[in-house]
């Protein structure tokens, strides 16, 4: 599985974002067991301590939970995933809007463009 890590931001923060994305998009379904820290670290080519740190942070937010003897799991709470999904979507839209405004488009332009382009994509 692909991990996309850029060079200028803390690695653990990027891992958190991508884990959230993988959970929201169903790569790791609700209630499923995650691979071990070692395997995940190797898959992402990152340091195991960094992976551990990111997963602990996700446990604090409740998106993951761990059972002492059997490993780490994705939450079974669908609302939690929905909230995360909304937050991620919001962040993407905000980023998009900021870029469009910088390019000099106003709200009406952006909305009509969105309509046009999504129609083109459907064809």
């Amino acid at each position, binding site marked *: 599985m692909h991990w996309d890590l850029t060079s*200028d931001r803390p*690695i653990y923060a990027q891992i958190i974002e991508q884990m959230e994305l993988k959970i929201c998009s169903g790569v790791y379904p609700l209630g499923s067991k995650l691979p071990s820290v070692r395997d995940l670290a190797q898959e992402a*080519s990152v340091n195991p301590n960094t992976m551990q740190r990111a997963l602990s942070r996700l446990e604090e937010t409740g998106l993951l939970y761990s059972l002492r003897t059997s490993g780490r799991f994705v939450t079974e709470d669908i609302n939690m995933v929905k909230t995360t999904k909304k937050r991620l979507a919001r962040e993407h839209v905000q980023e998009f809007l900021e870029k469009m405004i910088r390019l000099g488009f106003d709200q009406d332009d952006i909305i009509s463009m969105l309509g046009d382009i999504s129609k083109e994509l459907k064809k």
Partner: protein
Amino acid sequence: MSNLLECKNLTKTFGSTIALWDVNLEIGHGRIIGLLGPNASGKTTFIKLCNDLLTPTKGEILIGGDRPGIRTKGVVSYLPEKTYLNDWMRASDIIEFFKDFYEDFNPAKAYDMLGKLNINPKDRLKTMSKGTKEKVQLILVMSREAKLYLLDEPIGGVDPAARDYILNTILSNYSEDATVIISTHLISDIEKILDDIIFIKEGQVVMNKTVDEIREESGKSVDALFREVFKC
């Protein structure tokens, strides 16, 4: 837990040349550490001091509480910058050699890695390319189950694909009680796998932080920061 490696006021001079000056370090277990610095900053001197190939002018190094010597050589796996193996030997001969030398050497692991890198164990070192020789040496070093791995420029001469394999080998070899210290110039290739960075400059430690601390504080990759700190 006690430190795996400790340096107190470590100083090494060669005549009037200062190689290392008053270095104080404490390194714990289970870390992957990048020892970074420009040419002639003292990286190799530091690693040689850890291996008892040089003796300190002042101060001391302790590895697991012992000064470098016979006892520490049993727990330290060292990849020197230059090859020291006889080139008439076959890879399989050297594996036998290492088996005799080191109690913690795992021949099965070495053969497995040779296979994955398509190196024939029956080939003599003499007939191998520079990069292949480097791979063989690294395989030998990583096939020990040591407490401390000291790798002096392990990825300099190998191609990017083999580099990825080697870095993966270091990751898959990770254990909570072993520490790996890698000295290199190829920072961007390895920074993702590092916990900590030690920058040394003119024989002194100028920075000792985690990779994420550096990225958080400077908003830059370690590679970019290095280029800034050591700008010529």
